[in-house]
């Protein structure tokens, strides 16, 4: 059936035949998700796939313009959490994937997969949230679809949004452009969204003041580009957190990244929740945040522009792109030691040890 997949000559040390079934880790945004794409999907698509790695957003030529095209599915549980809902994520997430390519987001499609038995009032709340988020972002919801599945507990809304936008001439933003010497910037506090969602996940409930930071970032990006700086890379560190995003960029561009732990903006409430559960804040999901690689001599100007914008108020430099240890992200600890910031494996789980 999947005849073009060569099980014998993979470079990955972990043949897929070890897990003949899909496991939760495949959706975690970490190494396992990447392997699924690299070793199962891409070989299967063959020449039908555009060159590249099926990244977050494709920029493709069409009718003389450059169109940015992205899709994302949202399966977050619980559906409603402090600061937002699956509806906000579905709109902002795809808007942001387009924005990370430097595109102006224009139109979204919305596909609902509803579990039989879900309360219509809940579906309505999600839809309202989507409408509000779309208006706030200045995008239109132009086409959609609805399906119902008869799956067990009946408390699920799964959403897919796809989006298109336009990329202006001369804008070329993407991981391959990461260059040794670049300053690595973050637009604000990290770990916020992940902690907000975890705090109401069944089995873990804990009280926190942390609210999801979901937000559309295309106007922040526009402000950054308006400085005239040649922004090399933009990435919103969603599933897998800052660790996953930086590892992916490092691997794609064959560069190294060095972070300074002391410079990471981790709010106390996030640090405390991570301490309690044994999580690494660098691996916790973010929503309304972006990472940027910019030429070092433009870093200050870009930071100033970010801080002037409501979604970049907490922007800071957290590290540097380097030529050493390509593909690896390293952090200098507060004590002066170094540690490798690993690619998260699958799902982040709370630990007891």
């Amino acid at each position, binding site marked *: 059936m999947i005849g073009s997949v060569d099980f014998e000559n993979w470079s990955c040390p972990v043949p897929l035949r070890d897990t003949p079934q899909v496991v939760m880790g495949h959706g975690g945004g970490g190494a396992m998700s990447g392997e699924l794409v690299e070793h199962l999907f891409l070989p299967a698509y063959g020449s039908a796939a555009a060159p590249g790695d099926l990244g977050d957003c494709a920029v493709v030529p069409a009718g003389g313009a450059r169109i940015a095209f992205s899709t994302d599915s949202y399966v977050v549980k619980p559906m409603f959490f402090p600061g937002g809902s699956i509806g906000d994520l579905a709109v902002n997430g795809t808007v942001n994937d387009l924005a990370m390519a430097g595109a102006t987001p224009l139109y979204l499609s919305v596909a609902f997969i509803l579990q039989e038995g879900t309360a219509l009032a809940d579906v309505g709340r999600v839809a309202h949230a989507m409408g509000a988020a779309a208006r706030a972002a200045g995008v239109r919801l132009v086409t959609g679809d609805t399906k119902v599945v008869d799956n067990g507990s009946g408390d699920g809304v799964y959403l897919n949004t796809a989006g298109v936008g336009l990329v202006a001439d001369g804008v070329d933003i993407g991981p391959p452009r990461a260059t040794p010497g670049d300053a690595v910037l973050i637009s604000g506090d990290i770990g916020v969204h992940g902690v907000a969602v975890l*705090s109401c996940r069944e089995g873990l*409930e*804990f*009280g*926190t*003041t942390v609210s999801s930071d979901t937000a559309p970032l295309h106007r922040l990006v526009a402000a950054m580009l308006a400085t005239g700086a040649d922004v090399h890379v933009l990435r919103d560190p969603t599933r897998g957190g800052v660790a996953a995003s930086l590892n992916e960029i490092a691997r794609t561009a064959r560069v190294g990244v060095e972070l300074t732990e002391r410079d990471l903006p981790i709010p*106390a*409430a996030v640090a*405390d*929740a991570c*301490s*309690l559960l*044994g999580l690494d804040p660098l691996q916790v999901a973010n929503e309304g945040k972006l990472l940027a690689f910019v030429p070092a001599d433009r870093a200050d100007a870009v930071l100033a522009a970010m801080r002037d914008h409501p979604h970049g108020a907490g922007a800071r430099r957290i590290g540097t792109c380097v030529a050493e240890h390509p593909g690896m992200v390293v952090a200098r600890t507060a004590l002066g030691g170094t540690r490798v910031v690993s690619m998260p494996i699958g799902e982040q789980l709370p*630990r*007891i*040890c």
Partner: protein
Amino acid sequence: MCLAVPGRIVSVADVDGTLMADIDFGGVRKNVCLEYVPDAAAGEYVIVHVGFAIQRLDEVSARQTLADFERLGILEEEFGDGWTQAARQVGADR
């Protein structure tokens, strides 16, 4: 093993015959079983592991330890002998 973190008791209540506490971990709040430190009261700090308070945190001792760390090196300068000082600190001269 044993990821256990310190937290401050906000309130104590009996739930189904079990002593439970609402604990503040610097902003994160969690409900924790207090059966193993039953005389701990609101305002006190405990160490929490997998949803259970396993020991009181002795604040006086904590402050003392930090003060000892602060004084490290200073005493060496005063007494000029890191050896004796270190040995004294581990009670080796007792």
